[in-house]
């Protein structure tokens, strides 16, 4: 080897080592931020925060099945007390009556700070008369049963007021004193982990603890035939990570083994096989390094794309080994390298278009593939020749040449049938153009249909709000945020009164702003002033003022009571309610106010414009989360259409610039466009749900397939295709189809879609390029 060859080799080795160091220190992630917008709007940011860190993302729903209701209730109580004792869980609820007493006691103790009805007017003679008369009327009704024990302490009925707000939302059904599904066959618990939803390790640990505690509980109760089922965002994240990890390893291995087998068969030299895989390894490493450096985090799905990259990146070494044997390196570089270089550039243009996507996962896939392909080509061009040395000889069996030439001849007969078929495909696509693409982000989710169904069932049984409609207010500090929430509450109260919405939840209900609490406390009169007013108010009442000494004492105590703080709610469901709706963030505090639909004819929809109008000017943001998700995916899809078109235009421009002949350009493009149409029509016909990654796959068919079309274009340029060239193309296409085809096996929708589109697409691109190639001038 020459001095410069050594230098090249050394540089490459150093680069690889540096790359390995970067990869070693990279952060790998399988979380949902793959799908979340890179540059979110204010509304989308709320969604992103909710999905990553919101209280909802920390909720796990548990269902105990089997046995009878009493056994399930027994396990539910035991599991609750076991989990509540663990520091990993912020809250564990099972609807047990005892746990609800804790909430009632907190509300009772702080009722004069919490109740919105507490105003100076309420403690005038008229106010007291009205409030106490109402309470007495309530005593005559069954609804008053819970009030009776507290009447002498709370004659104005503040506790009833607070409790009716607490239970305003739908409560789950109960059996034997604990939450149960509507059909009564499952006992239900709601657990909130301390670990954030985006902390998948933390979620995994929490889930393992729950399962462990459940088996311990069922063992100690001798109820081992009862089973636990569980669902929630945390479980989905853990499962999704396991799926992606498993598949990255499995798919890469399948692809690598199959491709290596092909190479062994063709090269018949272990040394060449190892050398041939060098550009692939370099490319895969460089891809991860580039993504890690550019984005900070490498998504598991991106690495999973490696299986396709192997198939694509190995091509360059195949061309080099098979084609240069007869020609020698110098001639090869002169005659074939320009064609290969153009193929690399079209691939780079295709993957490069994805870089501009606002869908972070897609942008990463683009950068990873672009870097990988480019690196593999460069390593093949500059590092492989000095390493391989001059004496490479891949046998090109005479029979292979004959067979391929005959195949080329036969395939030409397919021209007209293919054109007919392609016209049919275009007509089919035209007829179905409006329902071709699924307009829903959930098609990209790795959650299985079975898991999604269980989740939906548990959610319905627990009445877990799906929080579709949210009002969001933000403020620099907690007090200001609570004040803003109270302000928004006043506006929403009017909508409730008008029947526009059914109701809303607000953290200010259980943790009012200090200002509101202080105002309420200030409206409590001193005992000396209250006593005569009470006498006057109850002059004709069946309740005599003399019995209300406990009321006077409670009011006196409340006048000196410190304001209610968040810590006063600890250990009750109220803490969970407040924490999930009042969130500290880097830029201040946000308050979420979920709205409930009015029900009735309106169904579950809320008139968005009416709510917007009511909140106009208050700075509060009204979000229809479902609408936001649909819009988000719509944006991705629009952008993907735009980027794919731009990528296609870039490829066309590149080809036109190099080929300098519209006729040859048409010759290269025609088979590619036909291949795209046939693949998409075929997939849709086969019942595949097409989404944005299939769309991206269309661009990649053109980007990858053009490599083969370009070789056939050499005929138009006056060159002949000898047996070695034909064989190298056949082998290269085979490895590419294997690489992408392996992705089609994936259960991760993103990978599957690209594989199932580009795998057959690359094969068709080769076949159709052969069919439409100019007839070779007789050699």
């Amino acid at each position, binding site marked *: 080897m020459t001095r410069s060859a050594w230098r090249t080799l050394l540089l490459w080795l150093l680069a690889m080592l540096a790359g390995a160091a970067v990869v070693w220190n990279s952060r790998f992630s399988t979380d949902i931020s793959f799908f979340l917008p890179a540059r979110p709007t204010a509304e989308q940011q709320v969604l992103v925060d909710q999905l990553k860190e919101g209280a909802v993302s920390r909720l796990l729903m548990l269902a105990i099945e089997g046995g009878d209701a009493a056994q399930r209730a027994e396990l539910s109580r035991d599991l609750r007390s076991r989990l509540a004792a663990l520091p990993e869980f912020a809250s564990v609820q099972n609807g047990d009556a005892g746990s609800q007493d804790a909430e009632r006691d907190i509300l009772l103790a702080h009722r004069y700070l919490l109740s919105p009805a507490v105003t100076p007017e309420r403690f005038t003679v008229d106010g007291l008369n009205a409030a106490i008369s109402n309470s007495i009327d309530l*005593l005559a009704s069954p609804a008053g049963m819970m009030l009776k024990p507290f009447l002498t302490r709370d004659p104005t009925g503040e506790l009833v007021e607070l409790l009716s707000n607490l239970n305003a939302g739908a409560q789950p059904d109960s059996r034997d004193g604990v939450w149960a599904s509507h059909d009564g066959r499952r006992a239900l618990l709601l657990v909130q982990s301390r670990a954030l939803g985006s902390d998948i390790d933390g979620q995994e640990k929490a889930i393992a603890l729950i399962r462990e505690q459940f088996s311990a509980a069922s063992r100690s109760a001798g109820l081992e035939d009862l089973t636990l089922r569980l669902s929630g965002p945390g479980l989905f994240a853990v499962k999704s990570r396991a799926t992606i990890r498993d598949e990255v390893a499995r798919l890469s291995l399948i692809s690598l083994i199959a491709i290596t087998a092909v190479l062994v068969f063709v090269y018949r030299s272990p040394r060449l096989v190892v050398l041939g895989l060098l550009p692939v390894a370099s490319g895969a490493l460089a891809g991860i390094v580039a993504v890690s450096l550019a984005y900070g985090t490498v998504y598991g799905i991106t690495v999973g794309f490696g299986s396709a990259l192997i198939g694509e990146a190995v091509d360059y070494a195949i061309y080099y080994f098979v084609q240069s044997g007869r020609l020698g390196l110098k001639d090869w570089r002169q005659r074939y390298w320009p064609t290969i270089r153009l193929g690399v550039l079209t691939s780079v243009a295709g993957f490069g278009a994805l870089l501009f996507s606002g869908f972070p996962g897609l942008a990463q896939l683009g950068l990873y593939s672009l870097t990988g392909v480019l690196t593999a080509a460069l390593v093949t061009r500059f590092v492989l020749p000095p390493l391989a040395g001059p004496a490479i000889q891949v046998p090109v069996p005479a029979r292979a040449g004959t067979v391929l030439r005959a195949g080329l001849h036969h395939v030409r007969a397919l021209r007209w049938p293919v054109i007919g078929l392609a016209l049919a495909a275009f007509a089919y696509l035209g007829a179905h153009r409006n329902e071709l693409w699924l307009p829903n982000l959930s098609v990209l989710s790795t959650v299985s249909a079975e898991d999604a169904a269980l989740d939906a069932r548990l959610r319905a049984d627990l009445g877990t709000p799906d929080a579709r409609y949210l009002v969001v207010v933000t403020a620099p500090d907690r007090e200001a945020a609570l004040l803003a929430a109270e302000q928004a509450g006043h506006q929403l109260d009017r909508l409730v009164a008008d029947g526009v919405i059914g109701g809303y939840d607000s953290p200010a209900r259980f943790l009012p702003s200090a200002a509101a609490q202080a105002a309420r406390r200030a409206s409590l009169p001193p005992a000396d002033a209250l006593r005569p007013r009470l006498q006057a108010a109850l002059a004709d009442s069946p309740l005599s003022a003399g019995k209300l000494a406990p009321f006077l004492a409670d009011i006196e105590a409340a006048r000196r009571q410190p304001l209610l703080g968040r810590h006063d709610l600890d250990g009750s469901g109220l803490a969970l309610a407040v924490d999930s709706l009042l969130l500290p963030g880097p830029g201040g505090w946000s308050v979420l106010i979920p709205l409930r639909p009015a029900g009735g004819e309106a169904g579950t929809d809320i008139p968005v414009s009416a709510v917007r109008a009511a909140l106009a000017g208050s700075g509060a943001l009204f979000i229809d989360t479902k609408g936001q998700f649909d819009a988000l995916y719509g944006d991705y899809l629009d952008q993907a259409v735009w980027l794919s078109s731009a990528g296609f235009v870039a490829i066309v421009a590149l080809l036109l610039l190099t080929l300098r002949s519209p006729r040859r350009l048409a010759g290269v493009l025609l088979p590619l466009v036909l291949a795209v149409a046939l693949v998409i029509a075929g997939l849709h016909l086969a019942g595949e749900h097409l989404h944005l990654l299939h769309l991206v796959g269309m661009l990649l068919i053109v980007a990858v397939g053009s490599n083969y079309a370009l070789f056939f274009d050499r005929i138009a340029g006056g060159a002949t295709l000898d047996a070695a060239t034909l064989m190298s193309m056949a082998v290269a296409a085979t490895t590419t189809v294997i690489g992408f085809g392996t992705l089609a096996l994936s259960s991760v929708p993103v990978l599957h879609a690209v594989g199932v589109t580009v795998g057959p697409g690359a094969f068709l691109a080769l076949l159709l390029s052969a069919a439409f190639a100019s007839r070779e001038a007789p050699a």
Partner: protein
Amino acid sequence: MIRQLISSIVLASIAVTAHAAFNVDQLMSGLAQHKGGRAKFVEKRYLAVLDRPLVATGEMTYTPPDRLEKRTVTPKPETLLLDKDVVSVERDKRRMSINLASRPEALAFADSIRSMLGGNRAALEKNYTLQLNGNADNWVLTLSPTAQQIAALLQRITVSGSKDQIRTIDYLLADGDRSELSIEPLESR
């Protein structure tokens, strides 16, 4: 109503022929003949904390086997609906539903009146022991709770009536408070 009348005449004549052999089964089967209907009610609550009893009036509608609607008119309109295991209360335009399966003692309490109207002896005996005094024209049935959970709420229920018509239901609560419900049947349409 005609059929009820006939059945009560038949029942009365059986009672007369059988002399004083009026028992819980006969009472219950008589009550079970009811095909539902409407009644006016007056409910008086005697609470220790109040100097005077509270009086509520309104209408009750029973639809066998498990739907009972109690519509209070005075002192304040309120509708209470007991349908299977769910109680809904509507008051001040606010509606509140409670699934009683979550609180068996509350269900037993609310269920007693429905089971009485339906003549459902099995349902009553699940939670109470029954003791019948008097004759078919003037009977008194006393229900004493058997379960601890219900006894914590309720000392006993006393139901009185004549033939297959309930006249009063008296609840004596555990804390000594008492509620007296008088029922006056209305012609059903």
